[in-house]
Structure formats: structure tokens, C-alpha cells
């Protein structure tokens, strides 16, 4: 009990004094997840809009696959990416295993289905509203997609934040492909797992505080965004 209390105080101290290791790890976490988020959004959102606007034979199937992929266990994604990037794997020559790039790849794969699925729902609803009008104006396919993405931008931002939340808290996949190497691929979640294992509760708790802070921050942002959205302020 005393240990935990000491740990808490020490952890608090680490956060307040901006401990160098803590800052380094937090920044790497942000860097990896934000990069993955930008890439996933750039792929998932146009894909979602395309699925909303375009009818083609395998549309239902693609949507079902996306929804199923949302539930894909991150550890399995990590394993697959590991197999592809390992020295004997098809992409082994790139030498990406155990680098932040490998972690970005794994997180991108994990986040894409989530963002695409959430975005698709809002874009599909908006398309039902807009359909007759845009058809009557003879708007091209690309313009339809641009219009939908722009007019659903608040809902899409919420989707992106949900993706961020999933990425930043993910541990299984990045542990496998990143390797949790000090000063190279160590991020918040993998560091917490390691420090806890070592019995270093203070650093683990401090890292936990940062992670919780980020999650709460993102959720508050989602909340306030959906409020201003309803008021139509931006």
C-alpha cells in the first residue's frame, strides 16, 4: 500500500517535472499514432464516401468486410505485419521491422476499418439527404465525394478522434512489430507493460497518467465537437 502511494507521488513528480524519458516516450506515441491517423483518414474517408455514393456489385460485401475488420484483434494484425516485414518475409528487404515505421503500418491497418465504418454511416445518411439534389445538378462522382466529405466534416473528425483513441491505447500490435526498444520504438503502452513487469510502478503510473490524460482530452474534444455540430456553428 505504501509502495503504491509512493509510486503515485513519484509518478506525479515525473509528470510535473517533465521527466526526459517520459516526454520522449509520450512524443513518440503521439508521433506514431498521429502519422497512422493521417494516413488512415486519407484512405478511409474517401473510401467511405465512395461506398456511400457508388453502387457496385460487391458493395455490401466490402462494407461487411470493413465492419468485420473493425473487430480484428490487434495482436493478429501485429503478427501479420511482422510476417511481412521480417527478414525472410516479402517486404524484409526494406528493413522496417522494429522501427517506428512498422508501428505506423500496423496502427494504420488497425485504424482504417474503424474510421471507414464510422465515416461510412454518416456519409451514407448525408447522401440519402443529398441524393436527389446532386443528381439533379448533374454533379460528377468526384464532386459528390468532395461535397459529402466537406459537409460531413464534423462527423468525420469525430470518426478520426475515435481512430486516434484506438491507436494511442493499442499495445499488442506495436509491441510485436516495434519491439519496445528503448530510445527507438518504445511508446506509452509498451513502456507501461514493461515498467509494470519490472515493478517500476512510478514510471508506469506516470506514463499511465499521460495516456489517461490524452484519452480524456480526446473524448472531451469529441463531446464538444458534437455539441457545436448540433448548433451548426462551423
Amino acid at each position, binding site marked *: 500500500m505504501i509502495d503504491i502511494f509512493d509510486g503515485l507521488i513519484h509518478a506525479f513528480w515525473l509528470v510535473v517535472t517533465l521527466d526526459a524519458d517520459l516526454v520522449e516516450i509520450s512524443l513518440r506515441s503521439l508521433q506514431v499514432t498521429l502519422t497512422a491517423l493521417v494516413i488512415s483518414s486519407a484512405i478511409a474517408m474517401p473510401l467511405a464516401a465512395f461506398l456511400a455514393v457508388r453502387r457496385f456489385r460487391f458493395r455490401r460485401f466490402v462494407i461487411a468486410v470493413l465492419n468485420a475488420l473493425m473487430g480484428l484483434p490487434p495482436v493478429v494484425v501485429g503478427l501479420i505485419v511482422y510476417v511481412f516485414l521480417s527478414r525472410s518475409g516479402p517486404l524484409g528487404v526494406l528493413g522496417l521491422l522494429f522501427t517506428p515505421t512498422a508501428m505506423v503500418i500496423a496502427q494504420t491497418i488497425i485504424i482504417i476499418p474503424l474510421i471507414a465504418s464510422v465515416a461510412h454511416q454518416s456519409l451514407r445518411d448525408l447522401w440519402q439527404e443529398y441524393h436527389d439534389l446532386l*443528381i*439533379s*445538378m448533374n454533379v460528377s462522382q468526384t464532386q459528390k465525394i468532395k461535397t459529402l466529405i466537406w*459537409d460531413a466534416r464534423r462527423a468525420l473528425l469525430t470518426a478520426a478522434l475515435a481512430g486516434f483513441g484506438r491507436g494511442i491505447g493499442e499495445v499488442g500490435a506495436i509491441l510485436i512489430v516495434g519491439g519496445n526498444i528503448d530510445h527507438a520504438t518504445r511508446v506509452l503502452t509498451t513502456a507501461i507493460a514493461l515498467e509494470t513487469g519490472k515493478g517500476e510502478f512510478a514510471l508506469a503510473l506516470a506514463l499511465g497518467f499521460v495516456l489517461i490524460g490524452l484519452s480524456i482530452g480526446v473524448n472531451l474534444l469529441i463531446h464538444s465537437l458534437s455539441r457545436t455540430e448540433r448548433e451548426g456553428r462551423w
Partner: protein
Amino acid sequence: MSFFPLVAEAAQSSRQGKVLIGPVDLILDGRGTTVVIGPNGSGKTSLLRLLHGAARLTGGQIRWACSREEAQHEMAFVFQRPVMLRRSVLDNIAYPLLVRGVRRSEAMQQARDWAARIGLGAMLERQATVLSGGEQQKLALARALITKPKLLFLDEPCAALDGRSVKEIETILGQAKTDGTALIMTTHDMGQARRLADDIVFLLKGKVHEQSPAKQFFETPRTEEAQAFLRGDILE
């Protein structure tokens, strides 16, 4: 470039084996306003959608003096329930110009002029979705007219509006006509049909039952059904 005449020859639209409208033979020469009337479910909306190209043609043909692609750019459609883009009033009105590649500054200037013309000049930045029904329908009209279409389709544009809004919209339609836009509209308001129509198309059970100049239709309707409809009898 000439757009008229718009010619429908035995044009027909069906859905899941059920004929919604047609076969219809109709010629629009672009002079004045054609008002489509008829009982509920007689196919007024379907006729407009068919002529505009929004409904799939399942028989016969529709021709313009120009190609179909060119024609698409000369027509605009105003729906019974206006569709508002989730954007400001100004961005809604400018939208058709922007998707046609008009320069942004130019599009915004024209949109501002139109907003002023329809009395929305003081709410340019307001979200279109929060406007009243009458304001939304005026916005929809401005958005349809800003591309200077040769032919404007209106499906019951005043169906849910109060008297003042109806009057404002009829004024805008009058101006559009002066500016060289031909109108084809449906209405169930016989007063409106009398005020606006140059020609009447009377539909019954998905077919054109009578087509005549408005004056003649209202004064001496040829068919018994048209007489009954004008008396206010309920037609099946």
C-alpha cells in the same frame, strides 16, 4: 445553343413492372409556363422526373434540340421538400456555379446578388438548415436559377407554404420567366395554376388526359374528367 423543343415520344417510366407514367407524347417549345395538374397519384411528379431525366426511361424516347449532355446543363429541378446542403445560405446558392468550375469570387458575387433578390441578403452566413420552410424554398429557387437554366422543373414548390411565401415565390418565378427561363411545374392549387399557367397538362392515371392552353382548359375543358376535376370532384 438551342435547347427547345423538348420532345417526349411514347416516353414511359416503370418501376418493378408497374408503370408510373406514360406512354406520354408531349412537346415543350419553351414559351411560357406549363402547369401539370391531376389527382394525387396521377403521375405528376413522375412526369417531371421523366422529362428531366431523373427517372429511368423504360420506353419511348425524350429528345432535345441539343445532345443529352448539353441538355442536362440547361435544366434545373426544385423539389417539393427543398434539400438544403449543410452549409451557409451563401454557399448553398453558389454551389451549382462552383461545381461547374466558376471562379470562387465570381460565384460568391452572383450568389450574394441572388440572396438579395430573394430577400435573404441579411442572412448570408446562416446555416441553410435552420431557415424556415418558405426561406428554404426561396433559397432552392435561387440555387436553381443561378445557372440560368433554359427549363426549370418545379414539383409542388408551394405545397407546404403560407400565403406570403407563395406570393414571394410566384414573384420570383415571374422574374425567371422574364429572364428567359421556361417553367414546368406541378401544383394542386388551382388558383396557382390559373395565375401562372400558359399551358395545362392534365394527367389521369399516369397518362396525359388533356393538354391545352390554360385559358381554354379553364373555360372550356374538353373532357368530362377535366370538367369534374375542375369542379372539385374526386377522381379515381
